[in-house]
């Protein structure tokens, strides 16, 4: 099993039963993350980027219909007994959520919530678990861990709460960390330090990191590889540096143009991407991006393009060759 | 969040109506209530029997279609169906008017407290906390004992109990509204606080008021029935569902139809009002979509 990658999604399809029939939120996503690397999933809200991972790990409030495979070290999470999956979560796979204040239970002390993550460690007694919780808080540079442990979530700041979430995700030194918009709810001043903490965790422990974000700028400094998602599909993947330098898909180009940090412009070009993605569940004939695409052609309206090679280690789902546009 | 008054959502967004219409329970409740209300209003006009005419030759008749007394007669020969429908009309009128008064008092109090904020809000809402802890039914009975059984007094006493919940909810809502841009803009423009409440806060409380009005009506009907049951409410020959249930309960072994008619009417009426209230709540307030 050594050959199998750390984490792999294979042709993942996720559908929910809605009022108007089944709604497909993820349509055949395939991705791979290797140990010690960071993969950024980039896309607008509603692109299915969070859904792909949350539903693969059984972390949705209603149960969707799922097809495909989600392999962790070669074991399929989708066919795993619930008990085994629960044992993996929090132990081998850590999860960090978007808004720390709504994801921390308001009525329980931080300590009580941190210790939940240590329940599988039968060899630790209560006081050892407390020490481990303290150490985990110190490792995310919280200066008075004792006070934080005894606090309720509403008594600490958002940045502090997100550090607590990271500490919880890291407390068992997991092999894979999935961070869903970890900095969106935070002030700009705390954002960078949280991203640094994440990268540090990956580098120090050789874990895999998946960071889900709508901000391609945030991904730029952090990720080794990037996967851009649109309307429930991956439309472009490849090494981060190469994608940022020469995006192949017009949507990726739009995202980069809209990110102020990357273009060096003082104001983001808000017009870079007019309109919004098609509503989930809408049956589409052509490319889902056709309506917003600045270089749309007739072929785009009839058949959706599959992912095709677009340079070394890169794939892009567009009918138009990169060379054609650049030229 | 949009800045339209929430009541305007009803007009501008058909979604609220659609949601309400799709709420099967709420539609069933609305239809049942309409039927009940129509029966309550029309029966006294159409029926050949009057609610207070004593017919000594028809005492204690059991329900019988041939004689026209479909729910039988009571022990002084009055038609039970006509009296039940009259009782329903009285209960509905008392419920609706007392609910309107108490909801408006509560909304005004809550809006003032929530808008004032600070120490004023603290004091006003701690008073509400205190009043909440008083077993008001006993105070109402006390008032009835002291000042006699007066219909108007009954009405005032009920309204005085029921405004508290509304005050709490309005206060919380106003506190949220106070931080919105259009309120701050109105304040910066130098509008008098009273006008800010009337013009900008009140319209935004519309949806909330409609919801709590429908939820307060059944509660008030229950209180009125309870007091009337004890003989502290509506007096003969006028009647209400509580009076009829009290009379029926005394004759339950000899003439069960005397109890059946008002009980079925009261229960149906309360269920339909509760269903409408729940439906409105989930239609107007998506946050609280309790079934």
């Amino acid at each position, binding site marked *: 099993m050594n050959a199998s990658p750390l984490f792999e999604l294979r042709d993942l399809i996720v559908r929910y039963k809605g009022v108007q029939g089944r709604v497909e939120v993820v349509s055949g996503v395939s991705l791979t993350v290797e140990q010690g690397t960071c993969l950024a999933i980039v896309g607008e809200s509603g692109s299915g980027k969070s859904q792909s991972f949350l539903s693969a790990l059984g972390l949705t409030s209603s149960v969707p219909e799922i097809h495909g495979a989600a392999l962790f070290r070669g074991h399929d999470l989708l066919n795993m007994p619930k008990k085994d999956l629960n044992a993996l979560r929090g132990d081998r796979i850590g999860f960090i959520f978007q808004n720390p204040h709504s994801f921390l239970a308001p009525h329980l002390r931080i300590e009580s919530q941190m210790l939940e993550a240590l329940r599988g460690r039968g060899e630790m007694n209560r006081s050892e678990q407390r020490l481990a919780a303290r150490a985990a808080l110190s490792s995310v540079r919280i200066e008075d861990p004792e006070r934080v442990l005894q606090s309720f979530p509403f008594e600490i700041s958002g940045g502090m709460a997100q550090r607590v979430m990271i500490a919880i995700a890291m407390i068992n030194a997991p092999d894979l960390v999935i961070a869903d918009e970890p900095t969106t709810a935070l002030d700009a001043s705390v954002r960078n330090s949280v991203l640094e903490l994440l990268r540090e965790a990956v580098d120090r422990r050789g874990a895999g990191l998946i960071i889900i974000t709508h901000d391609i700028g945030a991904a730029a400094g952090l990720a080794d590889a990037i996967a851009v998602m649109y309307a429930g599909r991956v439309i472009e993947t490849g090494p981060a540096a190469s994608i940022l330098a020469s995006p192949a898909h017009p949507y990726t180009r739009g995202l980069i143009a809209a990110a102020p940090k990357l273009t060096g412009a003082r104001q983001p070009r808000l017009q870079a991407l007019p309109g919004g993605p098609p509503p989930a569940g809408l049956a589409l004939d052509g490319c889902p991006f056709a309506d917003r695409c600045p270089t749309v052609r007739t072929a785009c309206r009839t058949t959706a393009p599959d992912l095709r090679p677009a340079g070394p280690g890169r794939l892009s789902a567009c009918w138009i060759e990169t060379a054609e546009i650049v030229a | 969040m949009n800045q339209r008054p929430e009541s305007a959502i009803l007009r501008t967004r058909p979604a609220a109506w659609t949601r309400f219409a799709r709420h099967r329970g709420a539609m069933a409740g609305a239809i049942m209530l309409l039927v009940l209300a129509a029966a309550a209003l029309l029966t006294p006009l159409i029926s050949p029997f009057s609610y207070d005419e004593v017919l000594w030759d028809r005492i204690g008749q059991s329900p019988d279609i041939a004689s026209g007394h479909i729910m039988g007669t009571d022990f002084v020969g009055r038609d039970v169906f006509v009296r039940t429908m009259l009782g329903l009309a009285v209960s509905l009128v008392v419920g609706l008017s007392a609910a309107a008064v108490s909801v408006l008092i509560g909304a005004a109090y809550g809006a003032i407290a929530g808008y004032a904020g600070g120490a004023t809000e603290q004091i006003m809402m701690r008073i509400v906390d205190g009043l909440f802890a008083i*077993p008001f039914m006993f105070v109402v009975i006390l008032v009835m004992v002291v000042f006699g059984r007066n219909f108007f007094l009954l009405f005032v006493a009920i309204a005085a109990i029921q405004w508290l919940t509304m005050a709490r909810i309005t206060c919380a809502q106003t506190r949220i509204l106070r931080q919105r841009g259009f309120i701050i803009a109105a304040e910066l423009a130098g509008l008098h606080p009273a006008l800010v409440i009337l013009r900008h806060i009140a319209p935004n409380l519309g949806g909330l008021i409609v919801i709590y009005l429908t939820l307060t009506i059944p509660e008030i009907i229950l209180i009125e029935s309870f007091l009337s049951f004890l003989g502290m409410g509506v007096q003969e020959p006028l009647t209400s569902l509580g009076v009829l249930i009290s009379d029926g309960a005394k004759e339950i072994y000899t003439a069960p139809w005397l109890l059946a008619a008002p009980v079925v009417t009261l*229960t149906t009426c309360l269920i339909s009002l509760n269903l409408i209230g729940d439906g409105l709540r989930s239609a107007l307030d998506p946050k609280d979509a309790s079934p």
Partner: protein
Amino acid sequence: MIRYIFGRLAIAAPTLLAVVTLSFFLLRAAPGGPFDSTRALPPEIEANLNALYGLDRPLTEQFTSYVGGVLRGDFGPSYRYRDVQVSDIVADALPVSLAIGGLGLSLTLILGIGVGAASALARGPALATALSVAISVGIAVPSFVSAPILALIFGVMLDILPVAGWGGGRAEHLILPMIALGVPNAAFVARLMRASMLEQMTSESILAARARGASPRRIILRHILQPALIPVVSYLGPASASILTGSVVIEQLFALPGAGQAFIDASLNRDYTLVLGLVIVFATLVILLNLLTDILAGALNPRLRAGR
């Protein structure tokens, strides 16, 4: 927590004083004296009676001496039964009310929390709908309706339970009053519990707890039930008031010699001191239960303690 408890006490104490004051002056403002029914008493006898009840003294003096008496557990003599002390009547009647009230409240909680939780967790639309209909009907059938119907079914048609009397507090005399009193309130609690559980079950903090590997048992107990109980606990105060109010009717319908029955008799007899005494007893009971409820809710909900 201690500050919070003192904060709640600071509301409860003045409320109680306000109730006593209001009731006292309300009764003194009542038209007609206590001896109206005996009509046309010779003036000297009436003066004697007034002196006996302290009615010839200034109002404020009457009030302070009454409050002083109440603090010592002395509510003065009954107006109607001249040789009987109000406190003796209360001492006889209150245990009956407390017994059926306590039983009713227990039934309310057990049934309400159980049915509410079952309704929230119910799998399959049939069970969920059935429970939801049961709750709606339960709310719409008040005690004064269910009591006579229960008496008819179990007392007369099936003839298995007594329909009237205290029977020295034997269990079979308590069953029907307990059900009639507990079921309508249980329906309210069930509705509250269901709404609150459904809210907790969709909360994001549950996803996070599952993501860090918390056990299903811990999630149900600490992440769903514990926070879902907060609004139910807060409703305990109003529920106890509602049960106490309901006991007035239940005691009348089942001919129980309780405080509620005494209250109605005293009201109809215009036995002012007895009415006043009972109002004070009831109010104290409810205000204390509300205080207890607040403290319990504060213990469950840290945000409440912190005053946010």
